[in-house]
């Protein structure tokens, strides 16, 4: 089957899956319960449903996707340093570009949740801080690239920087477990925390987002290849 059709199919399937997760999250999964609601005598009448938790069904998938795509920045960085082939530098750059998109979306959706739940736009707690550092590192990757003229030197520095920058991703992922006092919720943990329908909606959203990430990456690779081809054709015409 044509590669482009496979990529487009993954993109559509990812869109369908994330939309399905959205519908499941709002209409079928039970709400997560927050603080107890008591009467004047102090008797618990029930628990406050946390509607804002619905952000979780697309905030966490896009955050996990950002970690995974960022891994490919480091992976292709290593491949470039081993082979010095330009294609790996291009692939690392595209992976970082998709990471940047996902990081911005993670920050935007997370900040809205923080504003509602914690009453503030930003809290300097470990998860948010380490993720903010990752955002700055991703931006710095492009600043570094744009500041070096020589193509090979740029690719080498970017590869090294990408590998070092990626170290922050597992730290950011694990920080809520390393520092248990963190106020950020720990969603993925042993012993549950999610009911069957919540987990199903989350996993469907996660795999959908990963498919979208892969399709975006491949589409950008296709664009870069088309760009190289265009340059080659132009050179042939001029020569």
């Amino acid at each position, binding site marked *: 089957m044509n590669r482009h059709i496979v990529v487009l199919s993954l993109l559509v399937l990812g869109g369908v899956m994330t939309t399905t997760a959205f519908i499941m999250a709002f209409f079928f999964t039970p709400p997560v319960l927050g603080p107890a609601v008591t009467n004047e005598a102090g008797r618990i009448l029930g628990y406050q449903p946390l509607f804002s938790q619905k*952000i979780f069904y697309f905030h966490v998938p896009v955050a996990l996707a950002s970690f995974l795509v960022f891994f490919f920045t480091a992976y292709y960085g290593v491949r470039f340093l081993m082979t010095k082939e330009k294609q790996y530098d291009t692939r690392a750059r595209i992976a970082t570009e998709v990471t940047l998109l996902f990081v911005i979306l993670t920050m935007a*959706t997370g900040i809205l949740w923080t504003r509602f739940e914690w009453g503030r736009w930003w809290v300097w707690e470990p998860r948010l801080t380490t993720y903010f550092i990752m955002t700055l590192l991703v931006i710095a990757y492009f600043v570094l690239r744009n500041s070096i003229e020589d193509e090979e030197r740029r690719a080498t520095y970017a590869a090294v920087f990408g590998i070092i920058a990626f170290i922050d991703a597992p730290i950011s992922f694990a920080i809520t477990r390393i520092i248990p006092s963190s106020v950020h919720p720990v969603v993925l943990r042993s012993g549950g925390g999610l009911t069957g329908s919540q987990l199903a909606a989350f996993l469907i959203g996660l795999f959908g987002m990963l498919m979208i990430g892969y399709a975006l990456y491949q589409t950008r690779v296709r664009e870069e290849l*088309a760009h190289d081809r265009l340059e080659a054709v*132009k050179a042939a015409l001029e020569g």
Partner: protein
Amino acid sequence: MDPVLQEIYTLVVPAIPYVAGAYAILWVALVVYIGMTYSRVGHLEKEIAALEESLERRGVGM
């Protein structure tokens, strides 16, 4: 929809703008990014096809 869920949702209206805002930001950004990428790919491939046709007419091989 489950009637209990429907009842519960009437208690959580204040969170709706934040949840809807987060969802809208996510999808608008993704759709715009995908649209722009596919549009650029389309233009590039059209340009390549036109230039390759011109090369063929000139009889230049690549």
